[in-house]
């Protein structure tokens, strides 16, 4: 988790035609697990090294807000109820690193523009923690138990970004789930965050 951040800061300090950094945050929802509301607070940091090339290094951190659902557990012990309903709490945090390509769609004024942002390939880390309230694991067995998992893999993302006065923006993007096999035993699928974000772009080295 720390390595990508260090790399990002190192890139920022490099001399050259570095142009701008942008930061954004907002609200994210998982589009890949319908019926199970998993929300995120996304934070996006972007570094655009060359003004004329709309290519930027991007790091997304999606802080999970936790999800609660019911789980069923069963026992053979005749002295206990055969079936109980447990409260399951799970939380997923996601870090994604990749290169974004911005494609200018049109200008709405001299300072405002709409961009299509595409991240054809990125690397993403998903970390999921699961816990069950009042689970008697000696006697009961959970059906389709979700388990703690740390998985990583390739993803893609795309979205729209509307720039106001060249420095403020609103962005909507969607990222694919991890492009790999379903998590072992998990009842839910890998998250696909849809993010609505507001941000600011800081031009720290003006191009001549």
């Amino acid at each position, binding site marked *: 988790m720390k390595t990508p951040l260090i790399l990002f800061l190192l890139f920022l300090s490099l001399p050259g035609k570095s142009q701008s950094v942008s930061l954004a945050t907002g609200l994210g929802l998982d589009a890949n697990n319908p019926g199970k509301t998993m929300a995120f607070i996304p934070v996006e940091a972007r570094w655009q090294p060359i003004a004329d090339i709309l290519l930027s290094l991007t790091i997304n951190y999606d802080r999970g807000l936790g999800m609660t659902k019911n789980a069923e557990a069963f026992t*053979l012990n005749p002295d206990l109820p055969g079936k109980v309903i447990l409260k399951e709490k799970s939380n997923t945090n996601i870090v994604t690193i990749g290169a974004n390509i911005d494609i200018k769609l049109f200008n709405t004024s001299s300072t405002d523009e709409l961009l299509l942002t595409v991240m054809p390939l990125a690397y993403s880390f998903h970390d999921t923690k699961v816990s069950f309230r009042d689970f008697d694991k000696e006697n009961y*067995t959970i059906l389709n138990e979700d388990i703690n998992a740390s998985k990583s893999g390739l993803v893609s993302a795309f979205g729209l970004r509307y720039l106001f006065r060249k420095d403020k923006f609103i962005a909507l993007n969607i990222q694919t789930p991890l492009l790999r096999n379903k998590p072992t035993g998990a009842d839910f699928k890998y998250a696909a965050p849809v993010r609505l974000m507001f941000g600011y772009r800081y031009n720290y080295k003006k191009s001549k």
Partner: protein
Amino acid sequence: MKNLTYITCLISLVFIFSRCQKQRFLPDPHNPGLSMLTDQQTNTGTCYINDVAYINYWPAAGYGIGWGGSPYPRLSKVTTTNAPDSIELSWQIGLRVNGKFETGAYNNIAIRIPALQGATFENFWGWNEKRFSSDECALYINYSTLKGTANIYFVKITTSNGSRDYLNISGLFDGNIGDSILVKKGRFDFTVETSGL
């Protein structure tokens, strides 16, 4: 004519592979060597027998459900004169070593549950979410050479793709044969043919 034979073979292969069922082992983090309790048609049944983890036999290439004679889990009716019938759920077992099946000290499990005389599909279908105690059920290991008692809980019974010819059954079981053989933490998630009922 040659083309027709080729096309027929191709269609048959596609049909066979589309019905080919694989086994999925989903490790239980609380019980090493066992697969989790699932209702996802994993075709996996595991348990501890005298603290050694056993798994049902399933070839790596998978089975086309419906092929007679294959050692996939099976449901059958056991009829006895002047006594209620029983329904037996049985499967071959062995050890899972480095993801591969190997023979162990025990090679078969059968759990026999008493049913009504003239037991039918409907009897078994009614056992969804039903728990049977060791007062009722018999446990057989190694093709009836060892007999004891069993508990079994049919956690979920559903039809497979809407057809009554196959059922998806998930559940828990345990049992013992005297003090010498203890079967613990058993769980299964099988697709079974119902023609034996």
